[in-house]
């Protein structure tokens, strides 16, 4: 049985390889007429938003050194309340926005 399935895998790999090679051939025959000079930045894949559980753990780490800040998470949105020195806002926002939230509501009072 083991031998049989192993043989099948070999055949499957061989078939896939053959398909790939012929696929490449087809491509090289055609002239590429697409314009490669501009970067396509309009990606169509939907945005991945972290779960509330992951966001809660992430914001806990991100706000640990800012005890005057409270972060709440609901439906993928992070809401920041409390007070903070304006000079520390950018590093805090950088950490929060790298957690893949749906949205960040900054309601902090800045000093």
């Amino acid at each position, binding site marked *: 049985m083991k031998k049989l399935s192993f043989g099948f895998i070999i055949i499957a790999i061989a078939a896939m390889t053959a398909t790939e090679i012929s696929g490449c051939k087809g491509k090289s025959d055609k002239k590429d007429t697409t314009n490669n000079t501009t970067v396509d930045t309009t990606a169509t894949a939907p945005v991945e938003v972290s779960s509330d559980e992951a966001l809660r753990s992430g914001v806990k*780490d991100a706000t640990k050194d800012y005890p005057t800040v409270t972060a709440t998470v609901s439906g993928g949105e992070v809401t920041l309340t409390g007070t903070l020195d304006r000079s520390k806002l950018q590093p805090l926002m950088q950490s929060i926005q790298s957690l893949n939230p749906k949205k960040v509501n900054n309601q902090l009072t800045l000093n």
Partner: protein
Amino acid sequence: MAVQQKYEELINAARSGGVKDLKVREQNNVLYIDGEAPSGKVKDQLWDIYNRIDPDYRSGDLVLDVNTGNASGAKMKIITETSNLNIRKGPGTDQPIVGKAAHNSLVTVVNQTNDQWTLIRTDKGEEGYVYNRYLGQP
């Protein structure tokens, strides 16, 4: 499209600054800009533009996730304000502290876990996870 227009200068700066795998997506009136910045300097420039277009990041219409990777083997500086940095057993502040990296000291990147945490080694041989915010260019 309105939000993309608002942040057009930022998108253009990300392109010209050499941000890799740049993705610009708009969903429910929130703009998501993702990519990998070639340096911390480019990342900070983008954040400065963000702050200029949307002072104090109040509008909640942009999620800017352009990060710099900490390459394995690279030396990084501990850029805490004054204190020494906790080194933890795992990537999370709920993890036990296994050592301290001195303020302004250099550490070696073992590998970067995610956008928040990096596994590092100190000159004393202490190894564990530190928060990426406190790792800067030497």
